[in-house]
């Protein structure tokens, strides 16, 4: 650390982060408890899609025929969230 870097450190030594509020647990809890309901929703969608197809004049669609559609939906939900994917770094973030 050179002399100038010490100056910056001294500058930061005279400030602190403002106090932040807590209280996020109820929201987080509701959301982490929501996974099962997401699966149930997907299951519920399954016959709903079938009924829609029937109502639209399509011939009876068996559960087996809808399986690829359900699988695609499932993969979309699972692959969309990947918190560990390496994101591009912020170095090029020039404004």
């Amino acid at each position, binding site marked *: 650390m050179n002399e*100038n*870097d010490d*100056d*910056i*450190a*001294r*500058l*930061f*030594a*005279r*400030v*602190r*982060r*403002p*106090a*932040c*509020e*807590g209280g*996020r*647990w109820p*929201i*987080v*809890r509701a*959301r*982490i*408890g929501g*996974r099962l309901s997401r699966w149930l929703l997907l299951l519920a969608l399954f016959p709903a899609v079938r009924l829609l197809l029937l109502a639209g004049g399509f011939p009876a669609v068996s559960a087996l025929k809808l399986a690829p559609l359900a699988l695609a939906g499932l993969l979309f939900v699972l692959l969309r*969230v990947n*918190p*560990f*994917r*390496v*994101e*591009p*770094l*912020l*170095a090029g*973030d*020039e*404004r």
Partner: protein
Amino acid sequence: MDDREAVERCRAGEREAYRFLVERYEREAFAHALALLLNRADAEDAVQDAFVDAWRAIRRFDPSRRFYPWFYVILRNRCLKSRRGRSPERLDDTLVVAAAPEDRDLAGDLDRALRKLPAGDREILTLHNLDGLGVREVAARIGVPEGTVMSRLSTARRRLREQLGPRGREMLE
């Protein structure tokens, strides 16, 4: 309960144990998200999303490691995703406040200067100077080599000096 025990219990599916981790780190996480996003609502969303992501991934977490550095990677990714395609940042929150009343102007100068920096500069300066993390720890947090951290720190300090107002510059002289 400590972090390790909480993580072990979370890995066993005990949701209440996660409360301990959320309540322990939510303020720090929010401050970090705010430094990246400069927007209270976006930072709140990023923190909540990151805690949900972390819960879902906690079985893959090695409990012998510290929780927050691992969580920070998730939070940071959430913040970066949130930044994509957004209109210019709204400046509605303070990043730093004076430690003593006589430093109020200085804190104002520093706050304004930090906001004008690219998010990466702001992140590295606050991790190093406000949180007191060493170069190695910063490198681990943001996933780059130590040499890169040093070079980015140097650039960030130069840009900060350029952006400082009169009180801040006075302090540097």
